[in-house]
């Protein structure tokens, strides 16, 4: 399943360019509500997705555009969803925080911190019970590790040996509260170990390291060893959301992390190893820009879901015909 080296770069650049455009579109009020950018954390989503197969399921958070793109959710449908248009992946019902795509077995939109963890364990239970091969990869931040749901989900997954890959994106802050101010024990691998889960801390700015760690963990899960836990040390380069003035982080700290930009690190590696030429990287960048332009054009084309559909899909009526995802 290992993607070819340029593919990792392509995915990270797609996410970066897509989200940079999102920030612009937000100031033009094309995108409304809360907007949480993943910029800086791309290596985690891309590295883990690179290790997954089409059979696997994904649960992410409200900071999930990157995961959706890396998983193959169409960029146009994603952008249209953020525009609130009916050609969006949830017909404009969800918005930035509730991105879902059954065809990619992707459910990104848990906007209550920690709320996705029990769901992920249940998705895994269904796969195991129905004899399907999938592993459920569950993304969450360091802030989620204090929620009760987090501990309940870890215990249940470990107790019943369910195929879950817990992916902690430790970006050092729960919104504006530093890890040391929200966790009594800042070693986030301790708690999963207390629940009997093998846990590993990994450099989340190195996409290859992320992918290798995920591959190792997935091998163990697919063997039937039960869940695994990976903590990726990462950092968001932008504020928590577009509303956040970001006054709680030291400028030198931000600069220190930006010096380890996952895109720059991987570009250097590709060039140094002779796996890519500068022109290849430029082409990747140009292709990503073109994809984003096309996504915006697709979103602009979409209409708003008609008023007659307001009460649609509150309850199921014809769902039996569709079958389960």
């Amino acid at each position, binding site marked *: 399943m290992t993607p070819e080296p340029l593919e990792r770069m392509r995915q990270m650049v797609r996410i970066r360019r897509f989200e940079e455009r999102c920030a612009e579109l937000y100031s033009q009020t094309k995108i409304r509500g809360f907007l949480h950018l993943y910029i800086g954390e791309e290596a985690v989503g891309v590295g883990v997705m690179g290790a997954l197969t089409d059979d696997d399921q994904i649960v992410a958070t409200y900071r999930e555009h990157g995961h959706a793109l890396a998983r193959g959710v169409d960029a146009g449908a994603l952008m249209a969803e953020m525009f609130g248009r009916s050609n969006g992946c949830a017909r404009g019902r969800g918005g930035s925080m509730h991105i*879902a795509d059954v065809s990619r077995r992707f459910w990104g939109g848990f906007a209550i911190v920690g*709320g996705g963890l029990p769901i992920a364990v*249940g998705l895994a239970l*269904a796969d195991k019970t129905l004899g399907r091969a999938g592993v459920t990869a569950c993304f969450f931040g360091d802030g989620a590790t204090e929620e009760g749901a987090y501990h309940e*989900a870890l215990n*249940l997954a470990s107790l019943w040996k369910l195929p879950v890959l817990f992916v902690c994106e430790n970006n050092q802050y729960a919104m504006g509260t530093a890890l040391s101010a929200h966790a009594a024990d800042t070693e986030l691998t301790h708690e999963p170990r207390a629940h009997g889960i093998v846990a590993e801390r990994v450099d989340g700015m190195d996409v290859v390291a992320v992918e290798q760690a995920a591959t190792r963990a997935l091998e163990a899960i697919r063997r039937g060893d039960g869940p695994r836990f990976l903590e990726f040390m990462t950092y968001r380069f932008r504020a928590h959301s577009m509303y956040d003035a970001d006054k709680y982080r030291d400028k030198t700290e931000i600069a220190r992390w930006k010096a380890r930009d996952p895109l720059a690190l991987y570009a250097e590696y590709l060039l140094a190893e002779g796996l890519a030429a500068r022109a290849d990287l430029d082409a990747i960048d140009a292709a990503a820009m073109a994809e984003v332009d096309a996504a915006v054009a697709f979103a602009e084309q979409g209409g708003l879901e008609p008023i007659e559909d307001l009460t649609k899909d*509150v309850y199921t009526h014809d769902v039996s015909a569709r079958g389960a995802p």
Partner: protein
Amino acid sequence: MALPIAAAAPRTSLLQTREALRRAMSEEMRRDPTVFLMGEEVAYYDGAYKVSQGMLHEFGPERVIDTPIAENGFSGLAIGAAMAGLRPIVEFMTWNFSLVAFDQIINNAAKIYQMTAGAYHVPIVFRGPNGAAEALGSQHSMAFESIYAHFPGLKVVSVGTPKDAYGLLKSAIRDNDPVMFMESEMLYGMKGEVPDEEFLIPIGKADLKRDGTDCTLVTWNKQIHTCLAAAEQLEKEGISCQVLDLRTIRPLDEQALFDAVCKTHRMVVVQEGYTFAGVGAEIAARVTEACFDQLDAPILRITNKDLNQPYNPTLEKMVLPSVDRVKDAVKLVCSRGKGA
């Protein structure tokens, strides 16, 4: 000349409510391999109230699953399982414990279908005893119909007889939306006739448990029996009451309510749960909005007193609806307004 053969009366069995519930779950689990039961003490302990007695033996530990005491975790887990193709029945030892799972039920079970524009649905039943039993004090005695009926995306069923428990639980398990299914600890041992042949009772249909002409008592779950006893006594005093068992709170059978008020022109709602923003308030508002001209008197509500359940047995009884409180309300509503 051959005599016409009388249609044989359907064969029935006298079942306790817990047996009717068990029969419903077991039949559905035999019929559909994706249905399973999970909750605290449902398997090896045979159920805290023995509803699931023997089910572990028949279905095995993969389908009758004991959970840790982690309501938020296992409720969320079951919702995830429902999203991915299973049909979980989650037993809460009491609905009081569902408060710990409130985030998962409201933010996920109730919303996922709409949030994903129908991509994912959540066919799940949460079930367990609801309302006051005896001497269980403040934190084990609440009624939750109004709480869960508040949220679009959820259905709320609350049953008071073995036959309804059976027929509605089967419908709930086959339903593709999340159903909050409320029973009563006080009724688990109550017996009633249940047809031996399989049947379903549709969600959203009320049932007239007693016919009458002067006043309609609207109720559900164990207060049905309070209302039937009150109606019996009132009959002897010359007041004829009908008892309308809603059975489902959401979707509400508005037509049955409107038909009832068009017939009796007087209505009293008898419910457990607090007065403020309770189901009775919703019924009174809807009936008044639609049938104001049919009403001869304002709709009255008999509810729990607006306070938490005390342990003291005298005070405990005073909090809940009672035959005497219902009778007084009927007499009051019949003494007011037109034609009184």
